[in-house]
């Protein structure tokens, strides 16, 4: 189990580094533009320059540190979940199993929350609604993970012909997703920043998270494969 956690830590650090690299390249421009816009708006409305706690450079480093720390945490979770569902995925090689878990994890943890509450750059977001938005974000994240788990249990447990099972599984997931999307209210904030800027940021964010999850699944799968084959040959 310790070796599994070691794999998770390593893969998580690599995933965090991938996200940080993406943020430093694709994400840097939109974030700088958005902060410049935010500053010009606050100058125009209040006239007062608000004191920044950290400089831009420190926040960029802090952002990278945060992404790597987040990646590490994600890596630990991913490797433990993979080990826990391992017996259910015995038909797959470790790499294939890891890539599958990575794909489902990305959809459940990143893509579905993103489609309901897309990432927003600085300059978008009303400080007064941040708690409400945090609760809504947790709600969509939790419901999405719950739905994925429930549909997976259904897929494992139901006895149907393969084609009927595929349709039933897809239908259940689709209906569940529709219920989640309709039940949760929209983002309470109005978005006044230019759509071009907002979407440049959103695509960079989604791309970075996709790169992180792909790295996570690939590195975890590769290391599990190596450890499995070294045990088989020992």
């Amino acid at each position: 189990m310790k070796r599994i956690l070691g794999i998770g830590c390593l893969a998580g650090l690599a995933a965090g580094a991938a996200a940080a690299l993406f943020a430093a390249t694709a994400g840097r421009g939109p974030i700088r533009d958005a902060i410049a816009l935010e500053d010009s708006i606050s100058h125009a409305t209040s006239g007062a320059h608000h004191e920044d706690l950290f400089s831009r450079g420190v926040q960029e480093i802090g952002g990278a540190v945060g992404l790597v720390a987040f990646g590490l945490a994600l890596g630990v979770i991913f490797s433990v979940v993979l080990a826990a569902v391992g017996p259910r995925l015995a038909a797959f090689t470790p790499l294939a199993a890891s890539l599958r878990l990575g794909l489902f994890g990305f959809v459940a943890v990143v893509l579905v929350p993103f489609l309901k509450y897309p990432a927003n750059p600085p300059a978008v977001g009303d400080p007064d609604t941040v708690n409400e938005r945090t609760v809504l974000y947790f709600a969509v994240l939790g419901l999405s993970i719950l739905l994925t788990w429930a549909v997976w249990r259904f897929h494992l447990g139901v006895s149907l012909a393969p084609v009927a099972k595929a349709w039933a599984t897809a239908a259940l997931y689709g209906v569940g997703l529709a219920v989640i999307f309709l039940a949760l209210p929209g983002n309470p904030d109005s978005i006044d920043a230019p759509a071009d800027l907002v979407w440049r940021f959103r695509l960079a964010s989604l791309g970075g998270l996709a790169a992180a999850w792909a790295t996570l699944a690939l590195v975890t799968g590769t290391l599990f494969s190596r450890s499995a084959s070294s045990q088989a040959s020992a």
Partner: protein
Amino acid sequence: MAESGVCHTAPMESHALPAAVPALPDVDVPVWAWALVALAVVVSYFVMLENGVVLSQVAETLHEFFHDGRHFAGVPCH
């Protein structure tokens, strides 16, 4: 392959695999590993989502330091 020393209590489905195909390690995940997962979730929360609900004073500093990463990860921000 239960290297953790924890005995298997739940019956495992045995899928016969050709010996050449390496499979995922067949381990029961011990409780302490799940505790680590819980810790990882808590760490993620503090890095990514803490807006002052739990830590009111330190939160602002934490929030601003990780600011760019938070936005980039798509979590709600001020």
